[in-house]
């Protein structure tokens, strides 16, 4: 949890690092069970070996769920905003590259814009998730509603 802040305390360009996660097969399995998404892309090595996309590309191994990555991005926002600074309202993501077991991924958040509307105070945020090779595997457009 972060210190209390107000809308005026945060400048455009403010940034911080969110969760850093070393992804394992066991974690992917646990997420599959807890989210009820047991697609064989997340556990079946034979299925992965047989699966080729239209561009000829294949996955190297089973992959982590896109929504697992999404959940770490959301957690970066809630760890920053909760309990009293505000609320995570929106996140739009693109999953750009697969997450494989053994990867270590790190979420980063940067405030891109600020806006006051008739009823709210908003921080527009760029989110990114990079793996241990520095490759950006997901990007996001986040929106935080600030309490004060």
């Amino acid at each position, binding site marked *: 949890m972060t210190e209390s802040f107000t809308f005026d305390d945060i400048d455009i360009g403010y940034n911080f690092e969110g969760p850093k996660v070393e992804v394992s097969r066991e974690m992917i399995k646990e997420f599959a*069970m807890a989210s009820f*998404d047991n697609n064989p*892309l997340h556990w079946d090595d034979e*299925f992965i070996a047989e699966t080729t996309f*239209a561009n000829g590309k294949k996955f190297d191994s089973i992959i982590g769920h*896109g929504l697992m990555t999404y959940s770490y991005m*959301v957690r970066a926002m*809630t760890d920053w905003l909760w*309990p009293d600074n505000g609320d995570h309202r929106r996140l739009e993501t693109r999953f750009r590259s697969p997450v494989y077991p053994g990867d270590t991924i790190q979420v980063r958040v940067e405030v891109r814009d600020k806006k006051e509307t008739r009823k709210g105070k908003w921080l527009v945020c760029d989110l990114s998730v990079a793996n241990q090779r520095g490759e950006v595997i997901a990007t996001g457009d986040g929106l935080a509603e600030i309490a004060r």
Partner: protein
Amino acid sequence: MTQTSTAFDPEGFDYDFWKDADKRAGWDDLEPGEVVESKPVTISLEIIQRYARSIGDLNPLYFDEQYAKNSRFGGLISPPSIHALFLFACTTHDHFMRTPGTVNMGQNWWIHSPVRPGDTIILTGRCLDKVIRKGNTFAIHDNVFRNQHDQVVCSGRGWTMRPY
């Protein structure tokens, strides 16, 4: 609401996505705009906490009843990304999101209000559009989740690449 809600039982969930896979709609069969079959489910604290643990998020708002009660939320809530499981809990086994090989390309979700233990979640979901890009087939789907008070808890849209 004409459907009867049930407490969602994780033990009763069919994790075998190969079962009846050939009966699920392929890209050709998806009808943009048609609302898909769904079922209201009641979400327990156990399901919320199991999900939170799976993402390594041990925020006391999900686990510490007294802390949550004293917070502005007034009680335990769930992680905002809980909708990840609603996509499966609220749909039937023949829903196209279960088709083996479905690849999630991106999502956007607006979080209206927190989901709480005991909430009954009702999904209105559909394939909204479908496209072909670089030889691959994609579905664009939108989902609106309401609670038992008919309040929208979250709404959003996603892209999936279809295996067939």
